[in-house]
């Protein structure tokens, strides 16, 4: 599970299996396909993108990842 949050406003989403923003690759691994404006808890009206029109995001892995010891 990845917590994706806007760095300029409270907008965020938690993305994992079953979320419409992810897809499986040829190795059956999930991939994030992030539309930066399409967070579940949407950007504030006064949230300003950068000069390139992008919202800086923070991707934070929450659930255990990695392999067996």
């Amino acid at each position: 599970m990845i917590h994706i949050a806007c760095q300029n406003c409270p907008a965020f989403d938690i993305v994992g299996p079953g979320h419409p923003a992810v897809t499986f690759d040829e190795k059956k691994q999930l991939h994030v396909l992030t539309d930066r404006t399409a967070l579940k808890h949407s950007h504030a009206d006064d949230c300003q993108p950068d000069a390139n029109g992008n919202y800086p995001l923070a991707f934070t892995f929450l659930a255990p990842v990695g392999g067996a010891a």
Partner: protein
Amino acid sequence: MGMTDQGLVNKILSALYTSSTTFTITPGTGGGSAFTVTPPFRLHLYSTTGSETTTGTENVAGTSPGYTSGYPSGGLSLGSSAFGSFTSGASSNGTLLTWTATGTWTLGVAGIEVWDSASTAVRYLWGPLSTAIGASVVISGDTISFAIGAVGASGASW
């Protein structure tokens, strides 16, 4: 013969991953070379996930600006004690790790590995991310973090 006693698994893995000082395990006669454990352990990022026997393709600054690759100084330190004490054969990281992108990461992040800090670093753990980050998803100003508890290690199946 059955599985390894889980109490022993907890002791061995706790000894490995909670230590803040270098120590050496010396096998008996015929048991092979001495094995030195060199904390701190470091978390590295990989665009292609490794396997049980082979390291993955590590992200590099050229395609992942803001990331530092290589061994033993690349990646980020998991702290003086990388993991908490193991219970039920498992534990996880106790330090928040964050990279800040300084440009577009044209290669994604699919896996992670944990290496020690020996001059010839040793790989200890590897695995795929539960959800990978695709190519060119991360752009300048974005951060990639692993929350406390997000990097798990388990010997429960030993």
